[in-house]
């Protein structure tokens, strides 16, 4: 029955494979270190957009505070990298400048690189599990949940600025060296760093795509429509909402950790409200209901910002806001919705043409 090619599952997977093949071949084409680093950063933004598509597009949970997991993940990774460059028993210089004499206890685990990376991913995920669990069990949803995520995001930014001796406040942490995994250095300006981000983006996008097609994904899409109805089918809606929110948090944490590796810098700017809302705009412009298109939306907007943003300076934010309004008004499904509509029209036209052919063939035999 399904004629619209957009809904053809095989073709969807094929499109994902082609796009990722193109993304994966970039380091084979160029060895421009600056470009590779920039494109890897886009990969991080793409991963953030995919994480928003999972919780907002699939689950209908509008999350304006994805910077929570992104920032926590970035801080975890930066702390790990910072401790890699410390001689045993020393403390980071900014702590000494802030009159600390000993390493704070919550910094201790970051001596160990493996543990540090695990914490960078685990702490934000657990935060999402607890916060999401509390909210969804109380049936907080829609705009109320979005406002709560904004509030937590702003609170975290304030906390990280206020705890100057432990976090270096607004200055943030800039580890002196690149991340070392065993003997291997992940130079942010190298094809290796690009591959790492690419591998993460590939893994999480395909995992999320599989998840969307699983029974779990079906229940999540159902509860986006009518959580009440889904409850009466025997599903614990709060658990499903918490799970999809925490999984999107894990992805954002991985994006944050990669971001710290790529920029060797983290600051409370990662908790900025504008940045988190930007992620939602990328996904909306690309198409929040499609993981792939949300990712492409991040590439488009950030790419345009890098090049057009330089030319337009502060006007850029106005252009971005205006394009968001245009998308909401005329393309509610983003570019993904546009492609879906076009392919639907093509399928319809084909169908009527076939009917017409059939009619005329009948006429001929008569």
């Amino acid at each position, binding site marked *: *029955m*399904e004629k619209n090619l957009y809904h053809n599952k095989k073709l969807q997977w094929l499109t994902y494979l082609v796009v990722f093949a193109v993304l994966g071949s970039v380091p084979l084409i160029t060895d421009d270190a600056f470009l590779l680093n920039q494109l890897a950063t886009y990969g991080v933004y793409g991963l953030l957009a995919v994480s928003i598509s999972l919780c907002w597009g699939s689950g209908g949970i509008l999350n304006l505070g994805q910077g929570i997991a992104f920032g926590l993940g970035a801080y975890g990774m930066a702390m790990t990298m910072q401790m890699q460059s410390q001689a045993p028993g020393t403390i980071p210089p900014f702590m000494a400048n802030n009159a600390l004499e000993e390493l704070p206890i919550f910094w201790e685990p970051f001596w160990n690189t493996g543990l540090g990376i695990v914490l960078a991913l685990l702490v934000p995920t657990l935060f999402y599990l607890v916060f999401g669990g509390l909210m969804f069990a109380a049936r907080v949803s829609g705009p109320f949940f979005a406002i709560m995520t904004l509030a937590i995001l702003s609170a975290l930014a304030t906390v990280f600025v206020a705890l100057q001796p432990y976090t270096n406040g607004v200055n943030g942490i800039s580890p002196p060296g690149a991340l070392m995994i065993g003997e291997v250095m992940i130079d942010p300006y190298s094809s290796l760093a690009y591959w790492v981000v690419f591998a993460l983006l590939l893994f999480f996008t395909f995992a999320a795509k599989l*998840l969307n*097609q*699983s*029974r*779990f994904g*079906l*229940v999540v*899409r*159902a509860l*986006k*429509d*009518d959580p*009440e*109805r*889904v*409850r*009466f*089918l*025997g*599903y*614990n*809606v709060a*658990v*499903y909402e918490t*799970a999809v929110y925490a999984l999107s948090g894990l992805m954002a944490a991985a994006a944050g950790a990669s971001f710290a590796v790529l920029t060797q810098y983290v600051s409370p700017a990662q908790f900025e409200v504008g940045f988190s809302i930007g992620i939602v705009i990328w996904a909306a412009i690309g198409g929040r209901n499609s993981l792939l298109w949300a990712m492409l939306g991040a590439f488009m907007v950030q790419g345009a910002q890098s090049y057009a943003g330089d030319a337009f300076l502060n006007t850029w934010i106005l252009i971005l806001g205006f394009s968001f309004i245009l998308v909401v008004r005329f393309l509610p499904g983003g570019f993904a919705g546009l492609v879906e509509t076009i392919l639907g029209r093509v399928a319809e036209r084909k169908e009527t043409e076939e009917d017409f052919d059939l009619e005329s063939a009948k006429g001929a035999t008569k």
Partner: protein
Amino acid sequence: MKGDMVGGFLKIRNLEKSFGGNRVINDFSLDVTECRLQCLVGPNGAGKTTTIDLISGRQNPDSGKVWLKGDDITGLGEHEIARRGVGRKFQIPAVLKGLTVRENLEVAYSRDTNVIRNMFSLKAKGCAQKLEEVAAQVRLTDRLGAEAGLLSHGETQWLEIGMVLMQDPEILLLDEPVAGMTENEIDLTVDILNRLKRTHTIILVEHDMNFVRKIADIVTVLHMGALLAQGTLEEIEKNERVRAVYLGTEDAH
């Protein structure tokens, strides 16, 4: 105190519920026998839908108890009550409008509700076969690919009945399942319900006495949130008190 099984697959005792000082359910008790179709009738505002809400966990009673197969289910969450085998169809048909008919039926096949296991499962065991069967039963086989939001009113009613059938609960709570259906569609529903009640227990809220006549084993009349009368349809129709408050004077001549 544990509800004994005698006389009750579902057992309701002294249920009370008020909304803003307005007593909607007033000391209501009911026993539902296994594999019977019991109709809840009564004038508007008698508390029929509220009774269904209280059984299925959408509302919690102020006092009173509900037992299912001897287990106290009062105050449990909706999903917990559903897992114990209570399925529900809403008065205003509640289907998942953004999903296709097929997806609606698939999600209603809720044998396994575990979040982790469902992450690693693409298809539920036995779902495809059941889906084919139910789709044929509710005459939606040709509409499986359609978006549920685009169905006609009658089709939407069928889809929700189909969802309840996919869920295959032990007891079905159906709130006006034939509202807005044509005569043909009603006849088909009667067929399905008469077959279903051999293996399932059904509580049905209904206004249409002609429909009730075709399916009901037992009729329970509610008035002002309390039980007014109970018995077979014949007994109910002869009952003077029922005639006075519900069937109205025009039927009393």
